[in-house]
């Protein structure tokens, strides 16, 4: 008897606690309908540098629309999962940040709405055509492109000078430079292979002219065995085998640490990297410079690494307001200025007319006053227009990342990872009932 009573009282105590927790979790989250005359309130989720400053600037200058900004983790670090879940649960924000690589996946899962009516042909004409291409899927417009992310090579000009290494313009020269760096300092490397980030590798394939995802006659053609991909794969495998680059996770303490102590003296990134380096390594002020990405034939060529667009979620009833705000961020002087002036962003606007604004707003003293925007401009123009992203980026990139992690001396290599990504992509498309070749 006593035993059963004590158990019952334990149940009651447990229940009471659980109830308290439940009530604490409830409530909030409902949007009351907007009355006329009152400003429309929209919610915006993003993680790009300077987003908070942009929202503040918008709210300060607008009375008809109020934006509530909520910072989420970057896409692959959990941000996309959060967005998908919110859409699934029916409590998604109105506007979300999505990178070009993941946009098709969100469109195909039905998470977004067509904004072609609000974001018109004339608006789109102001933007870099490659970015418009990447946000137009199945003949509809799904997002407002914010930045293009042309590739760039960041390097420590002081150490390059010290080691007497020329800044490489071709990939052949890059390998020679990598050898020189290693010779000059056995611990130092010219750059890093990021096993956790397939997009950096994909940008290299993109630059070389690969076209992994091709849509033709309602069929997806997956091709990762083309000459360009094969060439890039063999090249990077060679660098890894010869120990000419570090192999560290991107933006990990390990990577940052090696930049800090000068054992990594270069970074193959993209336009937005200028702001990241500046923010991560303030003490190396004036020591960095930016060069165009090395290319295969010495002529300017670039893929795109990252790059953000803004999309309206499917259940949003405030599409017009959301698009207005998105366009303000992407295509107005004030919007771009607010972001860049935050000091943390070196975004390269998709809107051609706004690049002088961005250039003026970005304090390039970190790069010794180098005109980095002119460099991005040239690189942006050379972005290969052939690349498209498929609707299974999540599967493709997770698989490649898993296999990048297994790369070992004498074991599986980059080619195996690409093959695995290819197979997983084809299987996923088939499972969804889509026609696929490859």
């Amino acid at each position, binding site marked *: 008897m006593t035993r059963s009573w004590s158990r019952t009282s334990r149940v009651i105590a447990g229940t009471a606690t659980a*109830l308290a927790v*439940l009530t604490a979790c409830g409530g909030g989250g409902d949007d009351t309908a907007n009355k006329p005359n009152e400003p429309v309130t929209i919610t915006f989720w993003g993680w790009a540098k300077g987003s908070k400053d942009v929202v503040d600037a918008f709210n300060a200058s607008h009375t008809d629309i109020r934006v509530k900004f909520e910072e989420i983790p970057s896409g692959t670090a959990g941000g996309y999962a959060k967005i998908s879940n919110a859409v699934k649960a029916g409590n998604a924000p109105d506007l979300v940040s999505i990178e070009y690589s993941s946009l098709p996946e969100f469109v*195909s899962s039905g998470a977004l709405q067509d904004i072609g009516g609000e974001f018109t042909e004339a608006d789109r004409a102001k933007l870099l055509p490659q970015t418009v291409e990447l946000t137009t899927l*199945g003949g509809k417009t799904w997002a407002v492109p914010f930045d293009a992310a042309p590739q760039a090579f960041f390097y420590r000009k002081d150490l390059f000078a010290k080691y007497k290494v020329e800044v490489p313009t071709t990939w052949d020269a890059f390998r020679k430079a990598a050898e020189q760096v290693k010779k000059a300092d056995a611990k130092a490397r010219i750059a890093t292979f990021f096993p956790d980030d397939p997009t950096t590798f994909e940008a290299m394939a993109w630059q070389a002219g690969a076209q992994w995802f091709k849509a033709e006659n*309602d069929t997806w053609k997956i091709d990762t065995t083309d000459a360009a991909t094969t060439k890039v794969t063999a090249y990077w495998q060679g660098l890894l085998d010869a120990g000419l680059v570090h192999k560290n*996770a991107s933006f990990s303490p390990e990577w940052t640490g090696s930049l800090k102590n000068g054992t990594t003296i270069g970074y193959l990134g993209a336009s937005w990297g200028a702001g990241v380096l500046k923010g991560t390594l303030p003490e190396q002020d004036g020591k960095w410079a930016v060069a165009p990405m090395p290319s295969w034939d010495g002529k300017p060529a670039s893929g795109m690494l990252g790059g953000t667009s803004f999309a309206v979620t499917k259940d949003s009833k405030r599409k017009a307001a959301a698009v207005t705000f998105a366009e303000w961020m992407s295509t107005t002087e004030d919007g771009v200025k607010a972001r860049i002036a935050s000091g943390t962003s070196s975004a390269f606007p998709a809107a051609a007319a706004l690049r002088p604004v961005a250039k003026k707003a970005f304090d390039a003293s970190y790069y010794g006053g180098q005109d980095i925007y002119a460099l991005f401009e040239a690189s942006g123009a050379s972005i290969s227009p052939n690349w498209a992203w498929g609707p299974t980026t999540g599967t493709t990139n997770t698989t490649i990342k898993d296999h990048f992690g297994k790369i070992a001396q004498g074991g599986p290599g980059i080619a195996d990872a690409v093959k695995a990504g290819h197979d997983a992509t084809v299987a996923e498309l088939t499972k*969804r009932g889509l026609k696929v070749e490859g």
Partner: protein
Amino acid sequence: MKARTRAATILLTPFFLLFTAVMVVPIGYAVWLSLFTEKQSGLGFGGTETVFTGLDNYTAALGDRAFREGFGVLLGYCLFYIPLLLAGALGLALLLDSALARARRFFQLALFLPHAVPGIIAALIWVYLYTPQLSPVVQAMEAGGIGFDFFSPEGALPSIVNIALWEWLGYNMVIFYAALQAIDRSVLEAATVDGAGAWRIAFSVKIPLVKASLAMVGLFTVIGSLQLFTEPLILNKGTGSAVTSTWTPNMYAYTAAFDRNDYGLAAAASVLLALTAALLSFAVTRLTGRRKAGTARKERTA
């Protein structure tokens, strides 16, 4: 009798309401989800259509090598981890049981302390200690001529086992220590009188007497291992390590839902995992139940 029934009803209702809301309904929803797949047409940009596909998600999960390999990893993990855990925790408990009273309390607390650190924090700290350029441990090992890459395909399992041991050794040590303390002191005295040394007492008297707790900890650890998730996820996300996104069945379900947007597959994988856990739990309760009945019988005959 009637009053008692009423009281029982009133007192149990909150429990069953919550049980229904947070256990039964979500499980039912998962089973429901697992029967559907999102299908698309054309290039896939026309949105999705939810189609009833019966057990297709289950065959897809079972047919996926990555999912099956996850169970293989769990098996390897159990074979590697459980003997180390049991031997370590028991060894420490025996040491404590024979140590000085003052040192006892200190060590008990010190050894238990890691368990108070949440798994996610423990994993983050260990990732730091595993990272070649940052870790003083790796540097010391290299200086001593031992090169070991904790993130390599061979290193992944030991890395995770090490974190788990760090977290759980002290906890299980406390369980064994309590069992050892419960041993009738007169038995130990009798053994001493019979001329048994400390080793002999430990192996021939103490360990046989705590066999039941050994079995219990072992079996609970097997079932707990099925849930392996947090530590490998941290190793997967934060590093370029060989721990894949589908390393354990739990991670497979997580990746299916949140990286691949395939909620049906994720639900099916979760249900399969839950079934495995249920089967194992059933086997465990049956086994321990029989053991208890067995010992009771023995005691009666003795």
